[in-house]
């Protein structure tokens, strides 16, 4: 009997107690059945969907936070008030990895299972697909023509051989390939789009390709989502390739009527070991590309333009410090600068607005930290600076020149992305072809009777309750052909 693709695997018969090897075999066999079972695949898919629902309903940690223990604690403390049904709620949710569903252990296991199952399924199906494409069974036995989902019998006046010619003629006209075999009866087989069976296979395997691409991107890729540069400043790219980026200008264009931003443009100069290699205006949808490294426009904000001289009046640096952080009070913004040629790190704190009595608008507060000092957590000096007036902080002459802007870029390198696109293409093309050009097969059986022949036709395709099926159309054509007046 011809087995329909996708029918559930037969139950493994329980094997009587035997040697250890047999038991191993038995276990492996059961495992194989599980992995190639469509039921199991469906359950895995639905479980992943459930994880997806959880992940979109529960707030998720931003990328990178999970890897940094301190950032994780800060982040959890930040959301704690929202999850305070009972005291330990946040911590329990954290230990269940509910805030990082898509990095969680359970999610990874499910994805791994799905991948293995996809591969197993495909391997499992390949031999059968090749067989049906290259060596289809032409003689399927008489009972098939009574039990197939769709079957028809036509009584013909022609001889069996003539009827056969007419049947294959109709099949060929409808684009079928035909094969015949003959013993006391004539067996006819016709199929269409036999290679299209493989498009479903390609559709499934493309998912493995996409996941491979995602894994390669995750393991070998580089990503810095917080590459902030103030106007006039230069920042080293963290890939250790001697690359740095200087922001010459940042412009936000606002729509005149609605006042909403209509364009962000970061004019940057890309330098390698100090020499310029490229200039570009980075915009949303128009990143700067250098080799396989890409700089995308992410966001922007305000910055403090600072000039810092040492005690002898020598210029240490003059650059914009992006206010890319926020103090815990949630109001004052913070920029961090490590002063070149010294051991000092400066915290530049902006005003919290008109209500701020400590740092007024037009002022910044500067806290100096000594990186190598024993107590690098407490500032060694702390002053509030007026705009344009130099002040001495930790022995340096520091001026807050003016407020400026910074841009935040995302720097990314993803060696897996081509695989992802390739997989996506195969995924779409694979399944679309599978649905548009479905593999079709029909069988015919022609027996001689006293005054002519009996033609039986059958297919495995299900009857369609809503419209007439291809099989019905085909049989109609064959009937018409057989009933046409025989030429004299």
């Amino acid at each position, binding site marked *: 009997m011809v087995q329909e693709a996708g029918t559930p695997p037969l139950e493994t018969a329980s094997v009587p107690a035997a040697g250890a090897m047999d038991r191993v075999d038995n276990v492996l066999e059961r495992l194989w059945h599980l992995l190639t079972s469509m039921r199991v695949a*469906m359950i895995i898919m639905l479980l992943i969907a459930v994880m997806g629902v959880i992940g979109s309903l529960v707030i998720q940690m931003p990328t990178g936070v999970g890897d940094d223990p301190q950032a994780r604690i800060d982040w959890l403390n930040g959301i704690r008030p929202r999850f305070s049904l009972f005291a330990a709620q946040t911590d329990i949710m954290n230990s269940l990895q509910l805030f990082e569903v898509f990095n969680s252990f359970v999610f990874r296991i499910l994805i791994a299972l799905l991948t293995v199952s996809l591969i197993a399924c495909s391997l499992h199906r390949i031999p059968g697909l090749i067989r049906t494409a290259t060596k289809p069974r032409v003689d399927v036995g008489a009972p098939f023509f009574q039990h197939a989902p769709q079957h028809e019998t036509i009584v013909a006046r022609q001889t069996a051989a003539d009827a056969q010619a007419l049947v294959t003629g109709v099949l060929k006209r409808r684009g079928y390939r035909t094969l015949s075999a003959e013993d006391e009866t004539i067996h006819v087989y016709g199929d269409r789009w036999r290679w299209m069976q493989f498009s479903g296979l390609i559709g499934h395997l493309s998912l493995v390709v996409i996941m491979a691409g995602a894994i390669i991107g995750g393991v070998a890729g580089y990503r810095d989502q917080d590459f902030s540069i103030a106007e006039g400043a230069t920042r080293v790219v963290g890939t250790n390739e001697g690359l740095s980026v200087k922001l010459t200008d940042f412009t936000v264009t606002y729509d005149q009527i609605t006042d909403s931003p209509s364009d962000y443009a970061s004019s940057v100069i890309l330098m390698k070991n100090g020499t310029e290699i490229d200039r570009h205006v980075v*915009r949303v949808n128009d990143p700067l590309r250098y080799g396989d490294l890409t700089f995308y426009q992410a966001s922007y904000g305000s910055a403090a333009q600072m000039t810092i001289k040492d005690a002898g009046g020598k210029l240490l640096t003059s650059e914009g410090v992006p206010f890319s952080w926020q103090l815990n009070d949630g109001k004052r913004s913070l920029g961090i600068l490590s002063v070149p040629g010294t051991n000092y790190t400066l915290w530049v704190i902006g005003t919290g607005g008109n209500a701020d009595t400590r740092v007024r608008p037009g002022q910044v507060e500067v806290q100096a930290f000594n990186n190598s000092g024993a107590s690098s957590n407490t500032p060694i000096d702390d002053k509030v600076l007026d705009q344009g007036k130099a002040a001495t902080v930790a022995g340096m002459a520091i001026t807050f020149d003016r407020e400026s802007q910074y841009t935040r870029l995302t720097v990314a390198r993803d060696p897996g992305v081509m695989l992802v696109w390739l997989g996506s293409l195969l995924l779409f093309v694979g399944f679309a072809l599978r*649905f548009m050009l479905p593999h079709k097969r029909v069988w015919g059986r022609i027996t001689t009777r006293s005054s002519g022949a009996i033609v039986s036709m059958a297919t495995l395709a299900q009857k369609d309750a809503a*419209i007439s099926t291809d099989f019905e159309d085909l049989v109609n054509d064959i009937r018409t052909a057989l009933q046409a007046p025989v030429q004299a």
Partner: protein
Amino acid sequence: MEKMSGYAFVAAMLSTGLATIAYLAYAISGLRAARMQTAGMPMNTGTLGFVSGRYTPAIGRYATMLGWLATLALLAGLIFRAIATKHGPFANMYEFSLAFAFGVLVTYMVFERRYHQRILALVALPVAAAMMAYASTIPSTIEPLVPALQNNLLLTVHVAVAIVAYGSFAIAFAASLLYLLQGRWALVAGGMLVLGILGAPTGLLLSGGNITGLLGGLLGGGLLGGLLGYAAHWAGLGKSFEGEASGRWGLPKPQVLDEIGYRAVVVGYPFLTLTIILGAVWADTAWGTYWSWDPKETASLVTWLIYGTYLHARVVRGWRGDRAAWLLVLGFVATLFTYFGNLFFGGLHSYSGLG
């Protein structure tokens, strides 16, 4: 142009409303005929199991005409608006809701042409009407595109492809509801449908026009209706109608509905796949990452997985029929969440001008 598109939308809403009434009249006329047939009068039974009375076909033709009228008016409205805004219908929820409604209408009309099952309109047209009604409650002002949306062609295709997928899934949903309505879950599904449909506008009213209220009312009402229906079923009010040859209450045969649901998913699934892929391409050019587990992306993936499961369910014994139909209902709920996602979750997609 903006004015003209406004008029066209009003025309589309009116004709959708009228079409819905006409389809309802058609269904009632058919139902009456079915009653009379059971009472012993001779009636025309179509090959597909739909019984018709004397005026039924004429009412049906008028309904179809009104349906096409609504579709064309909405199309005209979308075109005028695209000319006025110089971009596809993706800049805000207003535009996208109308595009969604258009997707549902046009897929319904195409399926009606092919399968002649006008009863599906009773679910599909209210979905389209609800989308248009929702659109009419939100601001329709034309605003300049925020930078991330200035990638015109990619986004237009992304949205065009998405509405075909959503429209097909709405048809599959309609078919599965009518399927379940006839099975032993009839009372559950009926309760869900009735209370859900009643709950949605109630929620909308109570929340002062908030979409969360609408969905809350829909889900809450549906849940309550389902529970009541189940209680009724448990109390022995309903019996199993499975395996019967013709449809009940003048509805199409369950097998026909099962088949239509499948056809609709076969159309929608590749389109949803393409929507997700194009979304990833866009995210990659705009933000430098093709996938960021943004809630809207995640919801679309969940939807995709549910319909993928459905396609398998169709060939696995024990999952065909009832369970497959439930997957279609679930899939459509997920579709709605994908669509309204940014209103709930925020995230990268919260550009819509409402988030």
